[in-house]
């Protein structure tokens, strides 16, 4: 049984009097310990799917099941212990007036988990940050370091599922690779399931076992890693995306 099941998900919302169909009848299944990618151009609705899963965007139609159970609305604390998210922009996703210590111990405080001192130190170590960063503020960190903190925060509650919303698109190339390798290592160590959004097929190729290509809020084509590597796509759109990033994929 798949760990994450999304069935015929539609997300519509009104903006300035117009109905925006951000996602139209998308279905996907992610198995436990799998890494699943969503790829597409800006505005194709891939981030909206992640937001709908965690309840940050409204579901208009369809169903989302985690471990076979439909997700409750509001999502609740049990959900937050299973599913966490890493946001796109590390400059906006950390509270500017909280030290890293506060940011990392907050989820523990919410769930009444003790031993936060040791857990915070361990979490920093796990994402490769020195322990003396603990009482720093986000503005004292670089973009890559901030994204490491965001990853550490998402892992504080030891979830099984990590939703990654373009986790590296705000970082420059060398830091991007470091961050992706960190994510891969953590996934291997902890047996995490990834649902990852990117507009970059090279990133998806590096990270994901399967990928769903999206355009205009609809699913276009699902590919396995081997199909992607062998350029065996059946739709023109997927091929265009592939051609745009093929040179970097071969280098990787």
């Amino acid at each position, binding site marked *: 049984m798949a760990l994450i099941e999304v069935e015929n998900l539609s997300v519509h919302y009104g903006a300035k009097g117009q109905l925006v169909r951000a996602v139209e009848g998308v279905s996907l299944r992610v198995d436990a310990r799998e890494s699943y990618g969503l790829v597409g151009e800006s505005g194709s609705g891939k981030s909206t799917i992640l937001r709908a899963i965690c309840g940050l965007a409204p579901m208009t139609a369809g169903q989302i099941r985690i471990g076979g159970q439909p997700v409750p609305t509001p999502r609740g604390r049990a959900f937050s212990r299973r599913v966490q*998210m890493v*946001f*796109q922009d590390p400059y906006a996703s950390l509270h*500017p007036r909280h030290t890293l*210590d506060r940011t990392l111990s*907050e989820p523990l405080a*919410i769930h009444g988990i003790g031993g936060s001192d040791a857990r915070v130190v361990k979490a920093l170590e796990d994402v490769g940050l020195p322990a003396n960063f603990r009482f720093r503020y986000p503005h004292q960190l670089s973009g890559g370091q901030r994204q490491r903190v965001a990853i550490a925060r998402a892992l504080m509650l030891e979830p099984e599922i990590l939703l990654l919303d373009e986790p590296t698109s705000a970082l420059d190339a060398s830091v991007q690779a470091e961050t992706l390798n960190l994510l891969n290592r953590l996934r291997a160590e902890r047996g995490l399931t990834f649902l990852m959004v990117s507009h970059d097929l090279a990133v998806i190729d590096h990270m994901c076992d399967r990928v769903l290509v999206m355009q205009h809020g609809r699913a276009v084509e699902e590919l396995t890693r081997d199909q992607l590597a062998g350029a065996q796509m059946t739709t023109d759109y997927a091929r265009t995306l592939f051609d745009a990033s093929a040179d970097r994929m071969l280098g990787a």
Partner: protein
Amino acid sequence: MATMTEWLRDPSPASRTQARLGQSYLAWLRMRRNPLAMVGLFIILVLLFVAAFAPWVATHDPLAQNLSQRLLPPGTPGHWLGTDDFGRDIWSRIAYGSRITLYIVTLVAVTAPVLGLLIGTVAGYFGGWVDQVLMRITDIFLAFPRLILALALVAVLGPGIENAVLAIALTAWPPYARVARAETLTVRTSDYIAAVRLQGAGAGRIIWGHVMPMCLPSVIIRVTLDMAGVILIAAGLGFLGLGVQPPTPEWGLMISSGRKFLFEQWWVATMPGLAIFIVSLGFNLLGDGLRDVLDPRSSGK
């Protein structure tokens, strides 16, 4: 001493307490680099000192009348700021009056902004009908002239310093609510709020721990800017017989009573007016400095 400073400045503190103390120390260093803030702090410290040691600072009994010595100009031996129409020493009255001023200012400063902050952040965070109801109430309070509303409240509650404070606090919160709501609206959709919501935090925790810290600096600035107005409204209530009652040496009351001699004996109204001016200036300067200190992003090296 050197080891103490080193402990405070340790870039990798060993405990939360050390980190917090270290941050306070760095905030103090930042504040010390701002000369205007230090001037403000100095003025407020002088006010505190005078209020605490009024019986020793004052040269006369603030209530003792001496009609043979009435309306003496400043510089008269024994009365360096002059005397008022009852022959009371103006300096001593200002010194004792600082207690009342401080009392009013403190009470208003801990009630009105807290109420405004609470209402504004709750309205901004929840939005929808909660926002509508709370902000319409705020509008109703804002639509009344502040002094008139305070007058109505004191008229109902009866004259006296506590009721005056209550009336001022109840009329002073709407601007804070507006400021806090505006800040909340910009913060509530940010990713860091989404992140903490995703961690299962309730509305109370998010508003208190995550939204309010973002609203605090602008509210603090408003508080310090409003302090002069608070002192004057308290004086206005006293003038109309609804606040502090004579012969209590309250600065606003002293100005009102000096009004009658403003052209011939200018010092009777001017001296307490100068006191209000200096204290308001002190609060404003201190407030500006505090804003810089409260924002960790502004910490230079």
